[in-house]
């Protein structure tokens, strides 16, 4: 019985989250109508929290590519990449991704989480030092922890905090790895990669940037924040996911360093995981083509993001520090945020609730992710519904 007692705190959290009517972590979409609309509890609901940035999940070319792959290659690989799970399509996607980032080496993983885990445990070993942004995603933390390396966190997006730690590392700095994200997924703020790259160069460190939320969103060709800030050639490792802008699931790492290809031989999360099914690889490959050939998707995305951000600001909500497709509002205590989120769902908008410790500070947030596929009417409706609930916050703010 004692073994199972550890779940008592989780049970308390579940009870707390369910108190408002719906548990935000257990929402079931009964039917998906489009990239931006579904049926939840019998209601038509605008999906404003699914990270479907380019809206490609129902793109006819992507759907056809997945269907063709199932018919020609079967439903699954039934094995790991090292055993029987590498099809020519996996290798082709790796080459395509590497070329997209203008480097020579690429690897695909079965999930974005596995990409971070698999890359970091291979790059780092006990005795190495890694400098990690304090707000980095759990998968980056877990990869660092699993590696056994010495982990030193620096304050989120704080270049002075990073440099102080590089100074303290002394001679070890030239062998350390700096780990950041491009776009941070809760508040929608970007890393100051120009400054971080300057420190990478000054101290001789290496830099890994997770572009999970910025692929397809930032940069002239959609590579991400490093491209937008003009420092792509000074990033050692890019990691990212297929489950957001590319509308599928999976992850990747690309690099200018030929040693990336050797990760295949030493990374346990890569070696011992079944590879992605052919349909996933095919739709991802097609989505990447769409991303590259249809810049108008990014234009729609940014138009919607700008409107939502401004609309929330006009209503007096406290938003994140910059316009991005991640639009979060600060709500303070979770006792306020939970009923607010419930009301949004009941009025037909699905969003993400972020409460401590999952939020980046002691506040709770409602987080929206904007899609290129949102219509102007949907964006206006989201703003209208948020506005109708503004009164719930009067006492707290």
């Amino acid at each position, binding site marked *: 019985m004692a073994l199972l007692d550890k779940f008592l705190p989780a049970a308390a959290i579940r009870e707390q989250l369910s108190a408002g009517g719906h548990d935000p972590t257990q929402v079931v979409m009964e039917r998906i109508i489009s990239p931006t609309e579904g049926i939840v509890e019998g209601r038509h609901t605008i999906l404003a929290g699914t990270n479907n940035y380019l809206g490609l999940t129902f793109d006819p070319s992507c759907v056809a590519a997945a269907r063709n792959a199932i018919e020609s290659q079967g439903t699954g690989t039934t094995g790991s990449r090292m055993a029987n799970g590498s099809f020519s399509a996996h290798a082709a996607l790796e080459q395509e991704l590497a070329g997209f980032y203008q480097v020579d080496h690429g690897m695909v993983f079965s999930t974005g989480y596995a990409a971070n885990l698999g890359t970091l445990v291979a790059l780092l070993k006990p005795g190495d030092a890694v400098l990690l942004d*304090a707000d980095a995603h759990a998968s980056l933390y877990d990869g660092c*922890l699993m590696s*056994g390396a010495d*982990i*030193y966190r620096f*304050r989120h997006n704080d270049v002075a905090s990073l440099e102080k730690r590089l100074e303290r*590392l002394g001679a070890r700095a030239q062998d350390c790895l700096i780990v950041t994200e491009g776009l941070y997924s809760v508040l929608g703020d970007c890393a100051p990669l120009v400054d971080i790259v300057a420190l990478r160069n000054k101290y001789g460190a290496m830099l890994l940037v997770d572009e999970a939320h910025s692929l397809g969103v930032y940069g002239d060709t959609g590579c991400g924040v490093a491209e937008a800030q003009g420092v792509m050639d000074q990033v050692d490792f890019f990691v990212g996911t297929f489950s957001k802008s590319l509308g599928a699931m999976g992850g990747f790492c690309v690099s200018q360093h030929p040693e990336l290809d050797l990760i295949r031989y030493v990374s346990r999360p890569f070696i011992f995981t079944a590879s992605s099914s052919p349909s996933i690889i095919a739709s991802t490959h097609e989505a990447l083509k769409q991303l590259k050939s249809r810049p108008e998707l990014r234009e729609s995305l940014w138009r919607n993001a700008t409107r939502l951000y401004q609309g929330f600001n006009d209503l007096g909500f406290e938003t994140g520090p910059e316009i991005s497709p991640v639009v979060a509002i600060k709500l303070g205590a979770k006792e306020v945020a939970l009923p607010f989120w419930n009301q949004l769902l009941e009025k037909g908008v699905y969003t993400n609730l972020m409460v401590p*410790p999952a939020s980046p*500070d*002691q506040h709770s947030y409602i987080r929206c992710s904007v899609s290129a596929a949102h219509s102007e009417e949907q964006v206006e409706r989201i703003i209208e519904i948020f506005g109708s609930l503004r009164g719930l916050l009067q006492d707290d703010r």
Partner: protein
Amino acid sequence: MGFISGRRSLNAQINEIENRIKRLLASYLESSNHPELEAHGEITGDTNLVSDFTLDSFQVMEFMMELEESFDIMIDMNALSNTHTVRDLAVVVEQELAD
């Protein structure tokens, strides 16, 4: 004799660090309006950083960042896995200062 005086000196150092951590923790709890500071009363070496104040993982990590800045050290996250009390933390800080 030298060994014993060395140990006394180390203990004195750890006690000094422990007292400083107590003040930092009280200040952190006060600044974050933590409701259990008054209820808990005096912070001692045996005070458990998590269970005595129900600090969540974010708050623990934020406090660690403040601690690092105050002592001008870096603490490896792995060193915290077996750190539960103020005294445990004082030992970790002492080791970092000695390195």
